[in-house]
């Protein structure tokens, strides 16, 4: 039972990561791949707060989200002047640079990672409680992102992604929209990090490397860029796949490369054969308005 609960917790966390990453790259078209570092910031912040200040887990997790959102400004403010490939390069630098800092600081546990994070719940139903929280957080994330994307704000994001110059020339502040999208997306990743830290009680810097960027990108691409339910499908597949591979009984030294190859293959196959992903984006909510033909001219 605990095995199943752990899988579901990972699904919940990964849905949050994939959905928030999808908001940034799929919906807003901002080519950042630094998402894992904001996940890390959330995990480390909430873990450290719990260890050193005894702050309660909910507050610590929210603080993790806030710190991740705050750090997103450090990336977005200077780098939003650039776009496309340049933004991607900046984001890689930001991710790996910050990760180096984490790996070399004493108080983050350096290379060995952060251990002994206190658990807020104990007892036999611990996994079940976490499972409910993770799935609920994932559901809230999906609802919130759907609300943003389907409404008037989403219309602005679409227009910005279609043609940023024309969008600005209409009086829209594209820079502010990008900063807000980054902060929201990265904040959600930070909260997911907090959940991870409190359940597994151990955070290692290795899990936030470029490989994690690849995994998150795979979830978004396979699930469906810009779609609401795509990240759910993507997260389910990417959590289930490694579990399935364990049943192949391969030697452990073999597992990581095999997994990496499968993920990469998936992305390449999807980009060629089904670039819209498994769940294509749904059309935006129609814009309600009064009937067009007041004077009875026109088609009908």
């Amino acid at each position, binding site marked *: 039972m605990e095995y199943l609960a752990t899988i579901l917790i990972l699904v919940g966390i990964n849905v949050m990561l994939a959905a928030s990453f999808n908001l940034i790259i799929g919906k807003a078209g901002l080519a950042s791949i630094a998402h894992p570092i904001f996940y890390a910031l959330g995990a480390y912040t909430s873990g450290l707060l719990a260890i050193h200040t005894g702050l309660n887990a909910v507050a610590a997790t929210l603080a993790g989200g806030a710190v991740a959102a705050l750090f997103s400004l450090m990336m977005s403010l200077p780098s939003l002047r650039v776009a496309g490939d340049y933004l991607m390069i900046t984001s890689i630098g930001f991710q790996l640079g910050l990760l180096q800092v984490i790996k070399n600081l004493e108080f983050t546990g350096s290379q060995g990672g952060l251990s002994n994070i206190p658990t807020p719940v104990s007892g036999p139903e611990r996994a079940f409680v976490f499972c409910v929280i993770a799935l609920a957080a994932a559901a809230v994330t999906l609802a919130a992102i759907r609300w943003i994307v389907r409404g008037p704000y989403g219309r602005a994001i679409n227009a910005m992604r279609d043609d940023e110059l024309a969008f600005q020339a*209409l009086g829209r502040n594209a820079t502010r929209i990008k900063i807000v999208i980054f902060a929201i997306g990265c904040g959600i990743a930070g909260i997911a990090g907090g959940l991870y830290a409190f359940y597994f009680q151990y955070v290692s810097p290795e899990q936030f490397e470029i490989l994690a960027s690849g995994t998150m990108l795979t979830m978004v691409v396979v699930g469906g860029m810009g779609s609401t339910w795509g990240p759910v499908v993507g997260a389910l597949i990417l959590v289930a796949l490694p579990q399935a591979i364990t049943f192949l009984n391969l030697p452990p030294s073999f597992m990581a490369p095999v997994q990496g190859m499968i993920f990469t293959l998936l992305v390449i196959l999807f980009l060629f054969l089904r670039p819209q992903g498994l769940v294509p984006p749904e059309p935006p909510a129609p814009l309600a308005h009064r009937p067009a033909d007041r004077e009875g001219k026109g088609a009908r």
Partner: protein
Amino acid sequence: MSAVLELRGVCKRFGGIVVADDVALDLDRGQILGLIGPNGAGKTSLFNLISGVVPLDAGEIRIEGRNLAGRKLHERARMGVARTWQNMRLFQTMTVLENMVVAPREYAGESIARLVFAPGAVRRAVAESCDKALAILDRMHLAHLADSPVTDLPFGQQKLVGLARALMNDGPCLLLDEPMAGVEGQAYDTMKEIVRQEAAAGRAVCVVEHNISFIKDLCTSAVFMSFGRILERGSVAELLASRTLAELYFGA
């Protein structure tokens, strides 16, 4: 009363290429000014300088007396600079109406805070924008296409939508970049009529256009540009009779 748009000593060069060389220009309410000249004369560049796509090297641009120096693209639009683009730059994944609803000087849906704390006000503002957009489309006989994706429309109608989107900005200054290129038939007449109406309603309009008959029919005055300089200015008839223009245009 001073001009809506004033340009004084505007200069811009890209490396060795001079696109604006000491340009001075006044645009008044109700005026339709034609901007003509051979390709590469700096006509579109002048629009880019006014709307803030590229910064000035020197000089001054004022709208209703307010200096545009240091103002970003979106700030200038909010100060009342509305423009269209040669290649339209419509939002390709959106419908006609959606293209227009995000285009007023103030778009209520642009702020998450307002969406959270005053959803009713945002809804009302968006509904008002819809009404305004439909009224503009009505005048263009396009209202029945409001919910069509812009990419489904024929070229001439897309050009009209480009103008319709710019008209959502109720600012005093309207810059039209080759509104007639590739437009014919009914769309041509509609375009002409709408531009005339907007000027009559008090907008200051500046048109870059190669279609001389459009300029002749519509413009109250015109300037002739070449290599970033304004070479001649006057009524359209005067300009068309000018030898300089004939020489530069036709090499006569």
